[in-house]
């Protein structure tokens, strides 16, 4: 199923082009998702690489070294390592001879140069390997021509081409000839059993720089003459700037100027936003003016901002968490829903039921808290707008800036740095727009830097969501399932209603409703499923108990139903979900008597194309549940880089434990009540279990791992806590809602 979804129609000739570099060597440019334009020219000079027509370039030097210029942004999910591994595998070179360079981006037409949705590897799996294989074939063809033999008599391995007589030529020896050849129409990809790079533990390509503290991140980027900017934004959502007094701030050391921005952003919102198709990336643009301190250093800018005296006026309701709770519960109680999926007749099933189980699950807003706060460099001059920094969506960022400043898009360039975490936050370009507007106003290169307090309290949050899930039971059998979602601002996206348990239950319905808030919300690692999986997997645990059936058996039976009645719209594979359940049960000893005082909870989930099952082992220490161990079974197809895969899987699980157990984010009159790590809890080492990971081994095309292990863990933890305490926790963060006095031993 996956491989047919992955197929992208192209002919090799149209997506790959080559040239001989003026400085020596062969250059290959390729476009993964579109055919290259007919008349596009390949550069012959590395300083003129353009990424408008190509996703990336491969340079093979006369010494046989391979350099991959890849503009795909790295946010910690490892694609800067794993995507080049796919090229190198089929090109058949030693990984030690491969260098990866983060390419700057010139804007115009680039596609899928955003990191999000765990899709980079899934989409790149075939085309990246085809690119490597095509280049290898051209090198072989060039060597064969040199020898005057047929290419089919030659083989290539680890950068060396060998003919039937045993003579050899290095890739570097034939790059100039290869660059002149036609791109082959057909190439054969390796059998997975012959992989020598894919499947090997491969370190992060930036590891040496990271452990020695080299400049890599946006916050580390500097230019001659650059000044720093600290931005005072409205303290409450719903407020606008009324007036300010900068007398004291202007007198502080290092302060160059105090200005306001906001006019350009408002102009964009009023005159251009409706024409653009990325409302979701610009929804966080504020209508308010903002006061900006420009200073010689970061500290002086942040420090002087504290001395600004501003007054604010209310523009819309200043909302509090109590209001959100009230509004979302009212939506769940009401009838004003949009039906996302409807199978059979839920109404009838519930009317005829012997028993109905209904539960409401609640989650708070959550900030992203990337450890590197939002920041961006901008240099606006008469003929150029240069933007440098950590952003996941360079294309919308460049387009919005060009419209805000009334510039031709060709004048705008975006260069991406390594990102100190993303989790969805850097999909939104508010910090890019601010930096551009500031530089435009002062006509100097500037670095906009948010303090931690700015970052946490003027964010783009995971919206608060509530689910009400109901199941109908008749003659001891599950007959209907009805899920209602009430979310702030936006509801679950299109595919989610087709995830499990869709198609497993005859009468099935998913309804959504939303409350429109002035608090900015957006994608947060595994959007929507990050809480939905917790809710559903807690519900299934209780449902199994209610039905008097084994939890594992309930899932296996429901998945059997799907196998018997295949349904084309569902996104998950019932066989693969059953596979991860069996594996996790075996590896965790789930359901068998375990050590004294250890309580286990199970959760199973499919999202972001990957199938996952998890068991959490908890112990009670001083009346508090502590997760001691998590066993995780993953089916992500072929594992490209096991080292990177384990990092993503374990990180997703521990991140999920932290946010479901400890992290809370409350609003009072529009003001976030947490703004730094003394008032907001992130998981720390002492709270982390060991994560034991097991892969289902198969030859299916790979799927991503940045997100899918996070959503189910909340359910596994809640189910384990139930076994330990008898309490069914339905509201996150769990530790705020556990009743200590009810703890059973």
């Amino acid at each position, binding site marked *: 199923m996956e491989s047919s979804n992955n197929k992208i129609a192209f002919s090799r000739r149209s997506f790959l082009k080559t040239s001989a570099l003026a400085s020596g060597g062969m250059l290959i440019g390729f476009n993964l998702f579109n055919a290259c334009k007919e008349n596009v020219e390949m550069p012959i000079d590395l300083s003129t690489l353009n990424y408008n027509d190509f996703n990336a370039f491969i340079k093979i030097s006369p010494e046989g070294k391979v350099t991959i210029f890849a503009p795909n942004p790295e946010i*910690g999910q490892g694609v800067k390592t794993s995507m080049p591994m796919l090229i190198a595998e089929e090109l058949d070179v030693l990984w030690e001879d491969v260098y990866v360079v983060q390419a700057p981006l010139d804007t115009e037409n680039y596609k899928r140069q955003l990191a999000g949705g765990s899709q980079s590897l899934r989409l790149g799996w075939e085309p990246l390997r085809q690119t490597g294989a095509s280049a290898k074939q051209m090198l072989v063809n060039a060597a064969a021509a040199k020898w005057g033999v047929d290419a089919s008599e030659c083989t290539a391995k680890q950068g060396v081409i060998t003919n039937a007589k045993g003579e050899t030529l290095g890739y570097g020896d034939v790059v100039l000839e290869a660059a002149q050849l036609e791109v082959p129409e057909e190439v054969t990809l390796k059998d997975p059993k012959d992989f020598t790079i894919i499947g090997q533990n491969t370190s992060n390509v930036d590891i040496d720089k990271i452990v*020695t*503290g*080299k400049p890599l991140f946006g916050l580390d980027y500097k230019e001659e003459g650059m000044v720093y900017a600290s931005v005072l934004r409205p303290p409450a959502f719903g407020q606008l700037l009324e007036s300010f007094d900068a007398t004291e701030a202007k007198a502080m050391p290092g302060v160059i100027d105090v200005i306001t921005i906001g006019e350009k952003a408002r102009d964009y919102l009023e005159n251009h936003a409706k024409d653009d198709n990325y409302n979701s990336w610009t929804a966080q643009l504020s209508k308010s003016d903002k006061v900006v301190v420009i200073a010689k250093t970061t500290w002086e800018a942040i420090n002087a901002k504290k001395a600004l005296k501003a007054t604010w006026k209310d523009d819309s309701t200043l909302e509090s968490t109590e209001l959100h709770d009230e509004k979302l519960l009212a939506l769940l109680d009401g009838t004003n829903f949009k039906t996302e999926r409807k199978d059979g007749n839920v109404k009838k099933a519930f009317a005829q039921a012997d028993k109905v189980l209904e539960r409401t699950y609640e989650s708070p807003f959550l900030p992203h808290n990337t450890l590197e706060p939002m920041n961006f460099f901008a240099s606006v001059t008469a003929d150029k707008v240069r933007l440098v920094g950590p952003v996941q969506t360079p294309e919308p960022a460049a387009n919005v800036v060009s419209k805000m400043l009334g510039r031709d898009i060709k004048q705008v360039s975006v260069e991406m740095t390594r990102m100190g975490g993303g989790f969805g936050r850097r999909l939104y370009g508010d910090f890019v727009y601010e930096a551009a507007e500031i530089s435009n106003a002062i006509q100097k290169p500037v670095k906009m830097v948010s303090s931690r307090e700015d970052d946490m309290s003027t964010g783009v949050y995971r919206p608060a969501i509530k689910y009400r899930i109901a199941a109908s039971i008749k003659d001891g059998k599950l007959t209907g399932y009805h899920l209602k979602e009430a979310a702030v601002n936006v509801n679950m996206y299109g595919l989610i209603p087709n995830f499990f348990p869709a198609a497993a239950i005859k009468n099935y319905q998913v309804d959504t409703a939303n409350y429109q808030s002035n608090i900015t919300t957006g994608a947060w690692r595994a959007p929507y499923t990050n809480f939905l999986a917790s809710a559903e997997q807690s519900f299934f645990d209780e449902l199994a108990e209610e039905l008097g059936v084994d939890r594992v058996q309930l899932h296996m039976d429901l998945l059997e139903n799907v196998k018997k009645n295949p349904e084309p719209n569902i996104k998950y594979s019932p066989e693969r979900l059953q596979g991860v359940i069996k594996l996790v049960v075996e590896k965790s000893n789930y359901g068998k008597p375990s050590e004294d005082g250890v309580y286990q909870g199970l959760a199973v989930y499919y999202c972001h194309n990957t199938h996952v099952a998890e068991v959490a082992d908890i112990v009670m220490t001083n009346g508090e549940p502590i997760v001691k161990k998590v066993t995780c079974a993953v089916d992500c197809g072929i594992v490209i880089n096991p080292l990177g895969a384990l990092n993503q899987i*374990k990180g997703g699980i521990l991140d999920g434990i932290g946010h479901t157990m400890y992290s809370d984010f409350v609003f009072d009159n529009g003001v976030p009540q947490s703004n730094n790590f003394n008032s907001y809890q992130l998981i*720390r080492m*002492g709270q982390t279990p060991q*994560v034991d990971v097991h892969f289902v081994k198969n030859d299916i095309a790979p799927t991503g791992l940045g997100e899918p292990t996070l959503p189910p863990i909340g359910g596994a933890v809640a189910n384990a806590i139930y076994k330990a305490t008898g309490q069914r926790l339905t509201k996150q963060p769990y530790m705020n809602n556990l009743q200590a006095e009810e703890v059973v031993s």
Partner: protein
Amino acid sequence: MSTFNLKINNKTHTVEVADDTPLLWVLRDHLNLVGTKYGCGIGQCGACSVHVDGNVTRSCLLPVSVAKDMDITTIEGLSENGDHPVQQAWKDIDVPQCGYCQAGQIMTASSFLKNNPNPSREDIRNAMHGNICRCASYNSIEEAVKVAAEKMS
């Protein structure tokens, strides 16, 4: 504004800054030693950890006027060639995801192991509890500290 002579990574640097400027920002903005990271500014996350007279210290909370006579080591000066046992262990285990917090983690671990070369698992978990990793690479950090301890003994 005052003039301070700072001894950092065995070199003396002279800076002219306000007395209350945190060492973190002197390192980053004045001396271009950007390996030391800003994460929270209130000593809660550990991204700015450096060694001051051999002890791990939050540079975001240390005013330059206090640091002036002290022996300061940053990630850039932890080893000549990036081959301190803790750095090597970080590479062996491939700890980093986004990598932003890792200089602080490495500085905390290297100071801790100097004082406790044979740590138990609980010792490691307690010592590293003050450093936040938002990517939650904690299992790998724990393993790498163990590996570094073995390298050092």
